């Protein structure tokens, strides 16, 4: 209870801080943006928010931070150049235990199941009960270091990525100091979470490069197994440590661990038998089959003929219902056919001269667009300063036309951030608003940004939340790793501060009806990199959402809009479809819907689809009530 009271106080203090700082310290890009000039602090940073509300926050669990430095390392200020130089280091000197790890305790990705959210960390994972999203409760936290702790859930199994050389099979915190060790673990761990208060590691699937991220893939034709696509970006370990691992170029070793992803098969009834079943050559040249088939430019530089070039994926998002996956694979965005999950096949690839590093991907709900993010600077550096170009470290939006990628536009969180805030495009998810493509996205210390990309050439921001830097003078790693919508709320994993929960508020960009329609979508489980097709019910909030959109775009005659509203209102007044006068009301709902279908014939662009969807929703509602 105490922590709740503290949070309330904290909110009012913060509002005050925002109000006081409001017009004072603005500069650069948009002088009116309230995100500019926020006060720094770990627990008392200034906050700016628009069209969304922070409804709850919890700090990191015990055991998941350095008690001496809860916010991470505060980096010492610049050393006085007039001081005499420090002596050269002694390579044999013992390490300085006073220096804790800044990244060692970082929070990372989120996964959801029922009333629980699982937060991954470089140090393990933590479970929160979110039965009441405004009052989340921390449940068990499990120590098992190795980073990044990218996390997914499927039934009673939880999956976690491990890439770092300190990772241990036994989850110990002590690390491993020898280059080759049987105790080292890099790959995908599997936990049984049947007892949420006592998760247990049941399998640890070793891979050559470890797992930076992973993605669960279900095969509609194979219910007994689950597949995991593991993406490794770290160095390939030696064959002495894990048999069969080779970092040689494909022309020297056709079994190289480079130029592939790991496909792990998990028998659901016996997860302990999970194993790597394929390392598909998704970078291969489609015509010749040559393993290193993309970006062969590296061959042309003198001395680089033997150079291994782009050969890995950072993250893969699958959309099984449309049979597609989008891979963000260092220098390329690639589109994969995953109808046979064990054997993904490349359909297309894109590159972009403004992109430093292809990091992650999100499809729209129709599977007709994909957003790739560019994690320029790796996420730990400031890349949203007023001096950083708006199309660098941004999102690139592509349309998918005939299973090919067609570039359309960029989106970057628009408020300039300071040198003390690590900021670049990072993880996000769709918000299920019918008739529009809307995404919420984490930008590290650039905060959370909600934007509409219905028009892929001109994305528009519709809501945001941001805090000031953790420290006023130094860059201390923090901010939102992920921000995802789950069953009516947005959850953000804050690297240093803990977890935050938000709700959307209506605005000129987004109506209450549209939010209500999104709230109707309920998932039993959510792994953001495994997208499922959202189907909206034939319900009133959905119809009203479409109507609001058509009114906003002037895609409906005012008179018709009034008729639609009247018909929906009347139908809402019915208790059952059998009562007196009900058939007249339902006939009217059908009749107006038929008129809308007629309007759709002459309508243009998005309005055509919205008119049809509105008509279908109204007819569906009438049919349900009858």
């Amino acid at each position, binding site marked *: 209870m105490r922590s709740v009271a503290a949070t309330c106080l904290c909110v009012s203090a913060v509002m005050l801080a925002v109000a006081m700082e409001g017009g004072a310290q603005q500069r650069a890009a948009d002088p009116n943006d309230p995100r500019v000039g926020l006060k720094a602090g770990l627990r008392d940073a200034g906050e700016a928010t628009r069209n969304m509300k922070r409804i709850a926050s919890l700090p990191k*669990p*015990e*055991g998941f931070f*350095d*008690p001496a430095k809860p916010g991470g390392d505060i980096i010492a200020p610049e*050393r006085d150049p007039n001081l005499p*130089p420090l002596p050269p*280091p002694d*390579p044999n000197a013992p*390490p*300085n*235990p006073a220096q804790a*790890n*800044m990244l060692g*305790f970082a929070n990372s990705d989120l996964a959801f199941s029922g009333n629980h959210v699982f937060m991954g960390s470089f140090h*393990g994972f933590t479970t929160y009960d979110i*039965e009441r999203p405004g009052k989340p409760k921390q*449940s068990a*936290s499990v*120590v*098992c270091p190795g980073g990044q702790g990218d996390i997914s859930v499927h039934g009673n199994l939880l999956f976690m990525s491990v890439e*770092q050389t*300190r990772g241990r*099979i*036994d*989850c110990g*915190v*002590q*690390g491993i100091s020898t*280059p080759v060790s049987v105790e080292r673990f890099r790959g995908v761990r599997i936990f049984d979470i049947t007892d949420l208060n*006592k*998760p*247990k*590691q*049941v*399998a*640890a699937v070793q891979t050559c490069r470890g797992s930076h991220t992973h993605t669960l893939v279900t095969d509609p034709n194979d219910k007994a197994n689950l597949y995991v696509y593991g993406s490794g970006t770290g160095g390939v370990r030696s064959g002495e440590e894990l048999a069969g691992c080779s970092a040689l170029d494909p022309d020297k070793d056709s079994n190289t661990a480079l130029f592939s992803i790991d496909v792990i098969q998990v028998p659901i009834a016996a997860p*302990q038998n999970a194993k790597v079943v394929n390392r598909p050559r998704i970078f291969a040249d489609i015509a010749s089959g040559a393993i290193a088939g993309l970006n062969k*430019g*590296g*061959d*042309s*530089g*003198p*001395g*680089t003929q033997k*150079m291994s*070039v*782009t050969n890995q994926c*950072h993250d893969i998002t699958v959309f099984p219902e449309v049979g597609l996956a989008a891979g963000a694979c260092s*220098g390329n965005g690639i589109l994969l056919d995953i109808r046979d999950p064990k054997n993904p096949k490349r359909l297309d690839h894109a590159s972009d*001269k*403004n992109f*430093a*590093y292809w990091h992650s991907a999100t499809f729209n709900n129709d599977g007709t667009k994909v957003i790739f993010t560019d994690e*320029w*600077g*790796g996420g730990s550096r*400031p890349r949203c300063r007023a001096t950083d170009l708006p199309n660098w470290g941004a999102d690139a939006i592509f349309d998918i036309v005939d299973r090919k990628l067609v570039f359309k536009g960029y989106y970057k969180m628009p408020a300039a951030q300071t040198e003390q805030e690590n900021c670049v495009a990072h993880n996000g998810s769709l918000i299920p608003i019918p008739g529009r493509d809307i995404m919420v996205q984490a930008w590290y210390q650039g905060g959370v940004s909600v934007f509409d990309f219905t028009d892929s050439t001109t994305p528009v921001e519709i809501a945001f939340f941001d805090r000031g830097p953790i420290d006023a003078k130094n860059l201390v790693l923090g901010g939102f790793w992920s921000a995802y919508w789950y069953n009516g709320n947005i959850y953000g994993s804050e690297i240093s501060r803990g977890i935050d929960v938000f709700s959307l508020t209506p605005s000129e960009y987004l109506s209450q009806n549209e939010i209500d329609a999104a709230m109707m979508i309920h998932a039993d489980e959510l792994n953001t990199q495994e997208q499922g097709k959202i189907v909206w019910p034939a319900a009133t909030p959905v119809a009203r959402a479409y109507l609001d959109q058509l009114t906003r775009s002037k895609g409906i005659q005012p008179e018709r809009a009034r008729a639609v509203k009247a018909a929906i209102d009347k139908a809402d007044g019915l*208790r059952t479809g059998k009562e007196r006068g009900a058939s007249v009301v339902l006939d009217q709902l059908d009749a107006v819907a038929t008129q809308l279908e007629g309007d759709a014939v002459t309508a243009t662009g998005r309005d055509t689809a919205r008119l049809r969807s509105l008509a279908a929703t109204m007819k569906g509602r009438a049919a349900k009530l009858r």
Partner: protein
Amino acid sequence: MASPIVVRYRIAVLLLIAAAGAACRTAAVADARPPLLQAGAPGQPSRAVGAMQASDLSQVQYTGADIKFMQGMIGHHAQAVEMVALVPSRSSVDDVRKLALRIDVSQKDEMNMMREWLQARSQQIPDPRAHHMMGTTLMPGMLTPEEMERLAAATGAEFDRLFLEGMIKHHAGAISMVAELFATAGAGQTPEIFSYASDVDADQRMEIDRMGSLLKELQK
């Protein structure tokens, strides 16, 4: 179908049960701290652990090799920054200029990060111009003073070619520094060094790709 009254009654009962359940759970949780567990090897149970023990990363520490890597990379990056500084006055190819700007922003910022890292650990911060001194051993892939002079003297297409070839070689050197780091006992274990070295490897490989393609385009 049940009458609405019965349905409502059922809902009320369910709500009561749910409320009572929630109250009990709240009461139970309010007293107890959430479990903090140390996971075990596959098949082994997790066990309760204290916060101090759980957060004890004292054995995962940076080593002399990590320090040397950071110090060496400062000088290495410094030369890349000197190379890109030549671009605006010598190249008119938009893609080359764009690439140079990106390398400039990224590597200057990474140099800051490496300086801060060394500073916070009371380690010597190398002079970024040290490689200009006579008899200095260059880090892998770095251009010799003669190569730098040749680059500075070139213009137009000749400059673009020398610049791209030189930077490809330079980046390849950084990648070999990462490989050497990870091959050293105990090195690259702390999450910061692991992440940074992995980023250097990934970013610079990708830039090599891009520069190779560019070189090919320019030779057409």
